[in-house]
């Protein structure tokens, strides 16, 4: 059982929902990434998703793309990211998962990447460019190490395919709210609640919703139908303020923002 499985058992027992912020590793540097993760968990985030910068992220909108570019321009390397995360995990009570392109995992070797996550106390991975057909090797590697391999279901996924994905995903299912790239949206699709409701009836796996979520109103509306919510671009955009502001106030701003979402979650 992975740390994520344990988290959701606890949350479901307490009838609570997860809030999972996304932060880009190394934007603008790894010290700041570590500080933000600790701040967000201290504020009450149940998990944290750490984006590993990639040169060609086709699922990402301008905000996250730009953060990846800034981090890569600093010469960020995977080894340094994992080392930093390994120092953070013993200091926080919430699991970390990496959002990472398969290009990076393949280059390092599936087993080696998974071993490194294990050694650093990281609970699993989301691989946005690895559809279920291409995932059996990595799923096997993750299973042998009690790591969660979180797979995605989207509005364009047919129902029979969604069922197949529920069978191979572990930790939770990531339901993508909109057909599109990451980024804040004012409106979320009206059929979203119904789709997530259907999916939750099909599987014992927790279902978390991501993409487009940025406002307390979104959280209020979606929390009842999901096990958790993921917020990315809205946080990364605020973290980018560190370039023109100081670290302490940026940290405060990001923390306050997540606190308003957590308030809406209760």
């Amino acid at each position: 059982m992975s740390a994520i499985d344990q988290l959701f058992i606890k949350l479901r027992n307490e009838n609570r929902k997860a809030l999972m912020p996304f932060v880009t590793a190394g934007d603008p540097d790894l010290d700041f990434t570590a500080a933000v993760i600790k701040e967000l968990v201290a504020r009450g985030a149940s998990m944290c998703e750490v984006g590993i910068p990639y040169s060609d992220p086709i699922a990402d909108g301008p905000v996250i793309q730009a953060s990846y570019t800034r981090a890569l321009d600093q010469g960020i390397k995977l080894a340094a990211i994992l080392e930093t995360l390994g120092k953070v995990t013993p200091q926080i009570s919430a699991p970390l998962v990496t959002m990472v392109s398969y290009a990076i995992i393949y280059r390092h070797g599936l087993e080696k990447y998974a071993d490194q996550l294990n050694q650093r106390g990281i609970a699993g991975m989301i691989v946005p460019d690895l559809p279920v057909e291409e995932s059996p090797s990595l799923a096997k590697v993750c299973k042998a190490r009690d790591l969660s391999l979180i797979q995605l279901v989207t509005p364009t996924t047919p129902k029979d395919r969604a069922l197949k994905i529920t069978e191979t995903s572990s930790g939770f299912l990531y339901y993508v709210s909109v057909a599109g790239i990451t980024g804040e949206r004012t409106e979320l699709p009206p059929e979203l609640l119904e789709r997530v409701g259907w999916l939750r009836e099909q599987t014992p796996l927790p279902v978390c919703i991501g993409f487009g979520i940025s406002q307390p109103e979104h959280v209020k509306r979606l929390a009842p139908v999901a096990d958790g919510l993921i917020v990315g671009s809205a946080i990364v955009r605020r973290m980018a303020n560190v370039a023109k502001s100081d670290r302490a106030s940026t940290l405060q701003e990001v923390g306050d923002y997540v606190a308003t979402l957590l308030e809406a979650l209760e």
Partner: protein
Amino acid sequence: MPTAPHADSCSANVPDAAGRFGKFGGRFVPETLVHALDLLAAEYDAARQDASFQAELDELLKNYVGRASPLYFAKRLTEHCGGAEIWLKREDLNHTGAHKINNTIGQALLTLRMGKKRVIAETGAGQHGVATATACAHFGLDCVVYMGEEDIRRQAPNVFSMKLLGAEVRPVTSGSRTLRDAINEAMRDWMSSVESTHYILGSVVGPHPFPRIVRDFQSVIGRETIQQCRERFQCLPEVVVACVGGGSNAAGMFYPFVEHSDVALVGVEAGGRGNQPGDHASPLTYGSPGVLHGSFSYVMQDEDGQTCDVHSMSAGLDYPGVGPEHSYWKETGRVDYTSCTDKDAMNAFDALARLEGILPALESSHAIAKAMEIASQRSSSDRVAVCLSGRGDKDAAEIARLKNDITT
């Protein structure tokens, strides 16, 4: 020219149902795109079986594109090299001036079959953008072309042509501002528009089924060449040469020859300024297997799997990846891959211009350069067939700039 079947015209049975060419290919894309790719694969399978689809495609290739393109004996170039005969497959004489239209007409017909009204495309040299804009104008489809800012600068005539043809050209300012980033942006557009939009990918790259569809539509090049060789000199050439960026003209030229094991196939990558990382665009020569743009193939990447910047003076070859079938042919040894520097390609451009009165595209000049070298090392009884994939008018201003750079 009589019609040949458009797919499976030779025995190579790749890709498999999962889009694998040996271990290469596959589909490494966000889940949002998977269903659309499944539908595209199914539609393409249906179209291949549909005689009326093939008839419509043949009619357009003949009367709109102007096929068959000639196979031309380059007599003075042959004499200049002093060896094997050099024959040019004149894809530069197609409507829009390159091989790219073979694929865009086919994929535009698929777009209509799927009931979609909007098309997006990426372009590097602009030839695929122009060919897509042309096909969309012909069929009345909306067209948006993504093009890197650096390529917009160096291929200005094609940008203007696309606009005249009614397409919207969207500049891409991320990353290296070249073909690779244009593909990223087109993919991102498709993530949000996939229900109403078809993405006409221009090369044999990307997720399954694109490498197969583009190869099949481009295979008309090789099929015609085989027939023309038999008509003109009653046998096949000893060597066939094509340039390789993403690899569409080469895949189309080589694929029908693959089963003819006595024909040597040579793919020419962009050697750029030299063999150091960042100075060339030769993933098959200097790269390693990895994932880029939805496919597992050779790629220029660093130790973390980040895509490296590459260089070629020709926008169409300035790409860090290559189609998965080329990786497969490299691994099986069926095709020899080599590279040609900017300088050698420029010399070949000059030679073809002055000796034959043909301005080749800078991309095609790489193939010409290697063909000249091969011809000069072989006997006069041998024949080398080269895919002259496009014409060089688009490059005139860039060549003037490069030559000025060289002389100053």
